[in-house]
Structures are given as C-alpha cells and as structure tokens.
C-alpha cells in the first residue's frame, strides 16, 4: 500500500514535465480563444460573453458565477489538453511494458490503481484551480463581468449596451470540478481499456464533439418535425447530461445519475481489466 502511494507520487512527479507543458499549452490556447472573442467583440461592437460560445441564455447557466471559471474549464480545448497527461498515467505503462516493473515494486494492484487515480485527479484539481486563478486575473479584461449573480458589461471593454442579467446565484464551482473529474475518469478508463493514450484522449473528445453534436442536431430536427421518437436516447448522451447536471437543466432528468453512472461503469471495467490482465514482460 505504501509502495503504491510512493509509486503514484513518483510517477506523477515524473510526468510533471509533460503535465506542465500540456497545462501551459491549454492555458495559452484558452487565453487566445477568450481574448480573440474580446477582439471580435470590440471590432463588431457586440455584446460578448465569457465561457462556452453560443450559451447566451443566462438562465441556463447558473454555474457561471463570480470567478467565471466554471464555463471556462469546460472549454473543450482545455479538457482536451488536460486529458493528455491523465491518459498517459496508465497508457504509458502499457505502451512501454512498464507494468511488470510496477507490480514488482508495488504488488497490490488495487492500491496501485487507487494511488494513480488519486494523483491524476489531484493534478486535475490543481490545474482547474490554476485556470480559475488565471480567469480571475483575466476577468477585468473581458467584456462581461459577473458579480453577485448579476452580469454586467465590463467597465474596461463596455460594448454596445449596459445589459444587466439577473441570475440565480448558485456557486456551483464544485459541480464543474466534479464534471471535469468525471471526464478525466472516462479518459483514464478508456486509456486502460484500449491501452492507448491516443484513444483515451480522442474517444471521449470525438464522442463529445461528434456523436453528441449529431445527436443534438438530430434532436432539433426531430423537434422541428414534431416527431416524438428520439434519435439517440438521452441516456447515451453522457457529456450532455453532465453539462445539464452542472447547469441544473430541468429538461434532463437524472442528468447527474447518467453522467456519473457512466463514469463509474467505465471505471469498474477498467479496474477489472487492470486487476485481471496478465502483465507483458
């Protein structure tokens, strides 16, 4: 058990270089995306909003609060880059046949799994914290400022109107953090199941970006044509359910249960494989 904890720590530290690289890359890209919105806003003199593009209905975003970080960590780019080192935690051991060495040093596989998972999520926590801090620092530069549940245009980059949105104040930063944890658990589990860092990163990203987008599009078509049947069952749209859970979207029943249930199922499958697979020497 102690060996497993030591190994979890040391492997996280060893991965700190790529962790740092990917984190900084994610942060830079995030800033570029957000600041480009500011630039576009200034040029076009339109009201802009920080966070997920296209989400203009404040009522559906109670998660957006003072820090403004909630929507930002859900930025797909940030999730993508954050998932690279998380997937690498386990996948690299498969890729380089290092598990034999690991199990010789720390033979309790459950403890190894738990230790690496804990340290990976710890890294996610630190990254999300740092990103939130960066957003706080960048906040005044952004055109929309949120305080005490009221969103107003930033005094620095005030654009077309002094729109004031009154929002239900609910500080759901923890919901966003849990969502990201869940996403990373999915990434980690898929990297164990497929033994591939690339697939661990890409599968959820494509599922989120492709399948669920198509499903949403199909949903819109279905609604427009007043057809009652759903093209893809709501339960299979894991990430949409996760986002609905953050935003407490009443349209999605059992959103949290579906999202975290999916995470748990994948986690259990990957744990079983991790425990039962023979170790290649």
């Amino acid at each position, binding site marked *: 058990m102690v*060996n497993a904890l*030591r190994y979890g720590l040391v492997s996280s530290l060893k991965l700190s270089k790529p962790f740092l690289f990917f984190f900084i890359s994610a942060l830079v890209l995030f800033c570029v995306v957000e600041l480009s919105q500011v630039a576009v806003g200034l040029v076009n003199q339109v009201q802009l909003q920080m966070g997920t593009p296209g989400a203009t209905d404040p009522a559906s975003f109670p998660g957006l609060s003072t820090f403004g970080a909630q929507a930002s960590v859900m930025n797909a780019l940030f999730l993508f880059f954050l998932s690279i080192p998380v997937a690498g935690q386990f996948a690299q051991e498969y890729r380089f*046949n290092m598990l034999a060495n690991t199990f*010789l040093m720390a033979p309790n596989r459950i403890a190894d799994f738990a230790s690496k998972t804990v340290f990976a999520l710890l890294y996610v926590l630190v990254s999300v914290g740092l990103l939130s801090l960066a957003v706080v620092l960048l906040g005044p530069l952004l055109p929309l400022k949120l305080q005490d549940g009221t969103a107003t245009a930033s005094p620095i980059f005030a654009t077309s109107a002094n729109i004031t949105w009154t929002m239900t104040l609910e500080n759901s930063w923890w919901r966003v953090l849990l969502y990201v944890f869940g996403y990373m658990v999915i990434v980690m589990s898929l990297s164990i199941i497929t033994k591939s860092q690339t697939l661990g990163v890409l599968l959820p990203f494509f599922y989120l970006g492709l399948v669920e987008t198509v499903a949403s599009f199909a949903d819109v078509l279905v609604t427009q044509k007043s057809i009652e049947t759903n093209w893809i069952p709501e339960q299979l749209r894991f990430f949409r359910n996760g986002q609905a859970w953050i935003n407490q979207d009443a349209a999605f029943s059992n959103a949290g249960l579906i999202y975290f249930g999916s995470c748990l199922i994948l986690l259990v499958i990957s744990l079983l494989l991790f425990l039962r697979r023979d170790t290649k020497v």
Partner: protein
Amino acid sequence: MLIEATALSKRYGSRIVVDQLSFSLEPGKITGFLGPNGAGKSTTMSMMLGLARGKGETLFDGKTYKTLKDGPRRIGAYLGPGSFHPRHTAREHLRISAFTRGIALYRVNDVLDAVGLGTAASMRVKGMSTGMLQKLGIATALLSEPEVLILDEPANGLDPQSVQWLRSFLQDFAKSGNTVLLSSHLIHEIAQFADNLLVIAQGELIASESLDSFLKRQKPSSFRIRTTQVDTFASLLETHNFQQSRASEDVLEVYSENSTPFIRLALDHGIEIFEIQPVGSNLEDIFLELTSNRSDYVSESPSTHNAKKGRNRG
C-alpha cells in the same frame, strides 16, 4: 527463504503453457531453470510473482509475493529488458525503483558500479544496448539487497566479463544462504554454477534434481581408437567381450566406461594405438534427449531447409 510452487497451471485458449508445475527452491542454492524456447519458463516466473494469472500458487516462506511483508525488498526479480521507460536514464529508473520500495538512494550508485553501468548512469534507456539493459535489470533486482533473486535469462547479451561477474556474484550470493532461480535455454551456461536444475518442456516438469544427479544421466561412454591394425584389434576385443564398432577405416569405437582394460589388451598383444578419443553424451545431449519432440518451436535441419530452397528454385 523457502520457496514452494504448487500446481502452477496456465493456458492460453486451448494451448497449455504451464502444466501442473510443482517444485521447491532451497535457500543457499542456485537453481537453474531450463527449457527450450517457448517451454513456459518466463510465464512460470511471471506466475510466481503474480504478474500472470493462472492456477496454483507460489509461496515465499508461506506467503504469496503480494502478501509477503516487504516482498518487493526481500525478493529481487528481473524478467526481461522491456520494462523500462525509454526516456528515463539508468539513474532515474533506479531512483524511482528505490524510492518506491523504500530503499536508501545511495544504493543506486552502488548497484550501478557493481554491474558496470557507473559511467552510463546518465544515459537514456532508449540509447542502451541489450547488454546494458540486462545490466540495468540486474541492478534493479539487486537494489534492495534481497534474499531471493529470480532472473529470467540474465546472461543474454552480456559480454564474457559480465557473464563471469554475474556467475561469481550469484555463487557468493547463494553461499550467504540466499536463494537464486535463474532461467536459461543454454545448459552449458547453467551447468557452470547451478546446484539444482529444473527442466521443463511444453510447460511440463521433466526433471527436478541436483546438477550432480543430472550429470549421472550421461550414457556409458565410448572411446574412439585410431590404429593401423583395425581388424586384428576388433577380433581381439570381440574375443574379450568388448562391444565395438568400426567408425572409419582406421578407427574403432569401443563401448566401455573405462579405457584401461582394452588399452592393456592392446599393449599385451603388440597393437599400436595412435589416438584415443573419449566419446560420450554431453550435457547438451542429455538436455536435447529430455526435451526431444517437446519443443513448440523446433527448427528444421539445414539439409531439409536447403532441399526446400532447391525445390522452390527449381
């Protein structure tokens, strides 16, 4: 530490890789684990350490590797050169291993020097030769000053000096009451320093005995005698009940464990002998006989191969 493996069995689909293997390893002894390629040696070692799943169990002083207190420190194992991160240096790899197992970090330099990697400590794994990787693996196994060493073909790729060092190191290690199990498919290599032998083929245990007892399996020896009076000597031997056969025009093969009686006979009858060459089954012959028709990966004979080549060209 007493090590007992009981009924180890493993199959991949319908293919049995390890079949009801039971043996024990004594403290203070080096046990050679022999078998042809694909006999199941590496799988057996992996099973002993819980790396591969299967039936049966291996107990180290009554406990499995997983449940043995301080197992990773008391047992040093090296099962192949693949288990390293290519971007780690030799020193980094050993430091991680030492930190994880709670071993003092000064041991890292000690073992690097011991295996002769002191000057390559900062070299990345991906730039190392097979021999250097073997040395790094052996260094990892020695890091904790263990009581037991389990090594899978550790001499592969090592230069003669390193093989000699490994041999004398293992002999000293065992003399201090420690246990060694090392596998090889080369019987000559093992025969130089092993006390006991385990021979397996197609996953089955064929022999488990001391090296001395294994050597006794050698067939009664014969001698090849070169003489100009082959016919005279042959009939003389026959009348004195010596089994013999003609090996060539001027060579007789005499089947006897002792050469003195027929040499005396030749001298008494004035037969000139120019050369006496003892012939007998060597260790390799015994090993091949034991494992004959029990290897999954048998090479075809050069003549068959050449005949096939000829047919294909024709």
